[in-house]
């Protein structure tokens, strides 16, 4: 499968296929300091950062905040929860204003269940993201 663009979810899709997936997309703006995700959440929506920076952090045993990463525009959050229901392991907070696309789990699942060609390409895009994540984790 060859990438057609750099979008983390659309990378294997053509223009017509992107329009179909966008039926499940909802835009949301987060203000500086807004919580985007809390550790323990079980929401299964996928979130793509369109503009701005998102701080990923955890609380340690002493209730101190430990920064894990700063995600830039073009990053995907929640791909794993979309695949499998599990709880989030870190918090995500907007650093400055953040514009995001949120792909509803139920709406996107319904679209993919009806269109296997699209499903294969979206699943492959998630596999690409998860491969990067797996290889980035220090083992």
């Amino acid at each position, binding site marked *: *499968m060859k990438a057609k663009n750099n979008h983390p979810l659309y990378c294997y899709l053509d223009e017509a296929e992107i329009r179909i997936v966008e039926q499940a997309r909802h835009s949301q703006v987060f203000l500086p300091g807004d919580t985007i995700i809390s*550790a323990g959440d079980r929401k*299964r929506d996928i979130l793509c950062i369109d503009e701005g920076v998102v701080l990923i952090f*955890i609380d*340690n*045993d002493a209730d101190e905040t430990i920064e894990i990463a700063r995600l830039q525009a073009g990053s995907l959050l929640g791909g*794993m929860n*979309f*695949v*499998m229901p*599990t*709880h989030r*392991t*870190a918090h995500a907070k907007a650093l400055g204003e953040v514009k995001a696309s949120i792909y509803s*789990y139920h709406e996107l*699942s319904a679209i*993919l*269940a009806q269109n*296997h*060609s699209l*499903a*294969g390409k979206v*699943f*492959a895009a*998630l*596999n*690409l993201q*998860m*491969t990067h*994540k*797996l*290889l980035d*984790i220090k*083992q």
Partner: protein
Amino acid sequence: MNIFVRRQENDLFKYLDDSAFSRLMESSEQKNLKAGEIVSPQDIAAIVIVLTGELTRYSSSGSRIGRIFPGEIDLEAGLFAQGALNYQLKASGPSEILLCPYAVIKGITEPEIQAQIQAAINDSLCLKIARLTHRNHDES
């Protein structure tokens, strides 16, 4: 996310019907490993499916980072990684494995079968990451 139902035992072909399953099994190569034999991603461009026995995953620094049991798969990340994966597998005892070449998976033209394979890889990669991230999170 599950738009498919499990129909087969092994984790790569689990969503395939019997016909597609037979076809992909025929395109895969079975291999017997002796205890201690190494399977290196540098040498094999294929997803490994353990049929019998057990494999252990070792990091490039030599640390044991996981075990793969019958029905489970590994090296699926190699299908998407830029270069060779930086770990290797070692047979814990005599083991039988099935190698499904990346080229076979890339060559699947039927949309439903491609989606079923990609969904199976979704599940396997997700579990591998969760074992690493949730272990640290849940024990902290």
